[in-house]
């Protein structure tokens, strides 16, 4: 059972649907997002981008641009020192600084259409545009390759002549586009397949998709003559921005102060830097603040969509439905530089199931498209789409109910995951049962309607976190957290602080502090901010409670065992109660100065113990055989939150992730021409779900407490995007009889498949 008591009393705020403290500013337009900041005297920065998907940069002549009136600075590769090879965590993936400096500003080569080649700062956007046109770049255009499988072929255009595949023995002596090969194995695959009565093998293909945040990247930077710098930017991790910028610009970390603006969506795509180092370099040269905002076209062409991939899955089961062996081969695009999420893809692929013999191999492949950035549960939606599709086929062929089949093979507490460790308490079975109990599961279906189910999970992470709680003179509490709030975090953290200290919710004022206000915080991602933040608040509150008890002891001349903190006050126990009255937080606040000074606590932790969150999705859809369009009729998400700090925002994560999955499954894809250029770099043709595309998304909050968190919390943000691809593909099969092994299942593709089977009539 999830923990519902704090300090021995029932929680009164945690678990309720409070109005978020930052809400009024957001519904009035007052909240300041990345592009809403301005500084006096600021210049407008603009990037010149490569029109070629692959080209050597022979020379860059910026003289005409520099001479244009109104242009105050121009930067190129010459303005960034090269970086030695060093891997760093970038959200939930790893990046190499040598690659980061090249992605931020191309050096030897332009490696994708849209790659930054130069940048200018000018007195207006119009002058900046004109200046970019005056920069003369000489390119030696090279052949390009985009698809991962094509990039792996011998003779494919080579992106990096110093990239040698890691993970292959013996180490290759020729460079290639394969950065890494990784494998996990358990048991004996050959023996396992011998035991199978049924073996299904399928190959699947997915296209790159973008995180689709509505707010483009934006940054405003100002550098002083003494090397101190300030940055305002829309980011999921301002401490990471600080670290990257300090490194790339050669500044002391302590001299860079980054303020995270409100962020208009990230989903992993804002865990890296694009504009910030450029704005700083321009500001350093121009000696004025520089503001840069990406256009929507630039977001599509020059930020980091996730991998397109080819995945082959083979599974064996006994005729009773027991999975005995499973293997998969994953080939993921990394984009221009290594670092696709193929590793988590490999680890997640079969993780929801207890399978004795498993072998998964994955390849990280570079190609001439933007460098991949994280996208919500990076790597998992792709591999689990493939696996859940095959599981569905097994269910059909063995005539076993698809939920029963998953239940029979479900990972439970104590199951050894294919990637090594045993699971602690987990909620996969609970979500399967929850779905089976819904009215949705039994609702009747008509012709051309189909139902699909799929499960999935994400590991979730903890990480370095620092949160401060300060009691103000009037007893109100200031909470400063360091992980940008992308969807209700402040409400959840304030609820925890309110219950921990026994103060009313509206007396807790949460803000996201800048990098100068707190110790290091890892970024918002990995479904970690509520999990880690709440853990840090419990720590900070402990410090405050201990401090207040100590002060009370001094004031009442008592021993520590004669006082305790409960129900919002320090209370005298036993005989002491006759001569001392309880003192609330507000009472102490009034005499704080006289009893030792300001009252506060700081939780500084590297949060461990993140528990995985499992989910099961159920979807009904209807296919129009004359157009190939699939309409989602009904959708249910059941997912384990451990303990929902704020149920409405947990539901919001379930619903939002499901709809992103719907878009990924049915319509979203990067469409490249033969020239390697993106053909649909706008919201009209990169078609994300709109309100009329989807129904209400029903949610079931499952709570299997995570024993490693004081309240039982599990991160929930990423798991919701993992099951939809498989669930929708399974529903499509159910509706049409056709197994779609390529995403998206967009109307033209569906119609073509229907026509091939002579089914395209109502």
């Amino acid at each position, binding site marked *: 059972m999830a923990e519902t008591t704090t300090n021995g009393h029932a929680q009164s705020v945690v678990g309720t*649907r409070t109005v978020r403290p930052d809400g009024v500013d*957001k*519904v009035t337009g007052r909240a300041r*997002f990345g592009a809403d900041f301005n500084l006096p005297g600021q210049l407008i920065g603009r990037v010149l981008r490569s029109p070629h998907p692959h080209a050597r940069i022979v020379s860059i002549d910026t003289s005409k641009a520099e001479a244009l009136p109104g242009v105050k600075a121009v930067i190129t590769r010459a303005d960034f020192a090269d970086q030695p090879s060093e891997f760093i965590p970038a959200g939930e993936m790893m990046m190499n600084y040598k690659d980061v400096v090249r992605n931020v500003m191309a050096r030897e080569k332009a490696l994708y259409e849209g790659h930054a080649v130069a940048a200018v700062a000018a007195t207006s956007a119009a002058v900046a545009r004109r200046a970019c046109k005056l920069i003369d770049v000489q390119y030696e255009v090279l052949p390009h390759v985009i698809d991962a499988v094509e990039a792996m072929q011998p003779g494919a255009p080579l992106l990096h002549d110093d990239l040698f595949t890691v993970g292959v023995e013996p180490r290759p002596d020729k460079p290639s586009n394969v950065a890494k090969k990784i494998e996990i194995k358990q048991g004996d695959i050959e023996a396992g397949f011998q035991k199978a009565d049924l073996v299904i093998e399928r190959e699947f293909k997915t296209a790159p998709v973008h995180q689709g945040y509505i707010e483009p990247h934006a940054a405003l930077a100002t550098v002083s003559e003494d090397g101190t710098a300030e940055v305002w930017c829309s980011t999921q991790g301002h401490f990471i921005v600080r670290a990257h910028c300090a490194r790339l610009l050669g500044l002391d970390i302590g001299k860079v102060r980054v303020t995270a603006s409100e962020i208009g969506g990230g989903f992993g795509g804002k865990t890296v830097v694009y504009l910030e180092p450029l704005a700083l370099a321009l500001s350093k040269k121009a000696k004025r603040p520089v503001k840069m905002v990406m256009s929507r076209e630039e977001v599509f062409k020059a930020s980091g969509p996730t991998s397109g991939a080819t995945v082959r899955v083979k599974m064996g089961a006994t005729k009773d439905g027991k999975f005995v062996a499973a293997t998969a081969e994953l080939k993921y695009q990394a984009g221009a530089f290594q670092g696709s999420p193929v590793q988590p893809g490999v680890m997640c692929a079969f993780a929801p199931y207890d399978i004795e013999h498993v072998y998964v191999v994955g390849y990280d492949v570079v190609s001439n498209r933007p460098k991949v950035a994280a996208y919500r549960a990076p790597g998992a939606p792709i591999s689990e789409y493939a696996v859940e599709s095959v599981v569905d086929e097994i269910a059909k062929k063995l005539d076993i109910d698809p939920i029963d089949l998953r239940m029979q093979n479900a990972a439970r507490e104590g199951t050894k995951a294919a990637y090594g460790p045993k699971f602690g308490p987990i909620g996969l079975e609970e979500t399967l049962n929850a779905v089976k109990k819904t009215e949705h599961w039994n609702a009747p279906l008509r012709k051309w309607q189909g139902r699909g189910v799929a499960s999935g999970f994400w590991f979730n992470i903890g990480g370095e976190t620092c949160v401060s709680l300060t009691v103000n003179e009037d007893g109100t509490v200031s909470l400063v957290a360091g992980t940008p709030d992308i969807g209700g975090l402040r409400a959840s953290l304030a609820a925890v602080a309110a219950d921990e200290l026994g103060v009313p919710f509206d007396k807790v004022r949460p803000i996201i502090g800048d990098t100068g206000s707190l110790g290091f915080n890892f970024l918002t991602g990995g479904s970690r901010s509520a999990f880690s933040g709440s853990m840090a608040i419990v720590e900070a509150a402990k410090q405050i409670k201990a401090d207040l008890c100590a002060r009370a002891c001094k004031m009442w001349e008592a021993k520590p065992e004669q006082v305790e903190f409960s129900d919002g006050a320090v209370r005298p126990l036993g005989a002491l109660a006759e001569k001392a009255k309880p003192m609330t937080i507000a009472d102490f606040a009034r005499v704080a100065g006289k009893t030792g000074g300001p009252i506060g606590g700081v939780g500084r932790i590297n949060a461990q113990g993140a528990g995985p969150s499992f989910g099961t999705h159920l979807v009904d859809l209807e296919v129009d055989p004359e157009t190939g369009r699939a309409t989602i009729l009904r959708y249910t998400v059941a997912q384990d939150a451990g303990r929902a700090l704020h149920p*409405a925002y947990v539901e919001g994560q379930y619903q939002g992730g499901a709809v992103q999955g719907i878009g990924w499954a049915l319509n979203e894809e990067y469409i490249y021409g033969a020239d390697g250029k993106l053909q649909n770099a706008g919201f009209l043709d990169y078609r994300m779900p709109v309100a009329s595309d989807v129904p209400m998304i029903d949610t079931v909050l499952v709570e299997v407490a995570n024993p490693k968190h004081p309240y039982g919390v599990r991160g929930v943000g990423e798991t919701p995007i993992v099951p939809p691809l498989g669930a929708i593909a399974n529903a499509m099969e159910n509706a049409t009889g056709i197994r779609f092994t390529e995403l998206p299942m967009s109307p033209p593709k569906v119609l073509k498949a229907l026509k091939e089977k002579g089914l395209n009539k109502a």
Partner: protein
Amino acid sequence: MAKHHIQAQVNGDEVEFLCETEETLLDVLRDTLNMTGSKEGCSSGDCGACSVMLDGRLVCSCLVLGCEVGGRRIETIEGMAQGEKLHPLQQRFLEHAALQCGICTPGVLVASKALLERNSNPTETEVRYWLAGNLCRCTGYDKIVTAVMDTAAAMRKG
């Protein structure tokens, strides 16, 4: 080319400004009038984050030129609350948690207000189709639709 001198009405106030021919109403609102409540998501009229009312009609301000609005009446998100009193839509969006990151929220609220002024009893389908021009990537639209319909019901009760 000389700038245009424009006088118009924004949220009931008379304003005047200079703008270049190519500047959109969105540019003018955000950069000249310092009203950053309307957001730029795409500049091509596809996302609705810049939604405003122009002479009582719902438009994408990125598709209107600044020099086109002389003598006309503009209503933005900044004018939706009445002093300290939030519009019922704003209040219910908060109560229903109909926003996560909040970037689409100003546009969605302006569009929703326009809907309820035309149709005080919309069906779920009508709400969804009316809001089809407002992209949201965080919420999946569920709580937005619930909040709009709940507001409609409350406003009907008076």
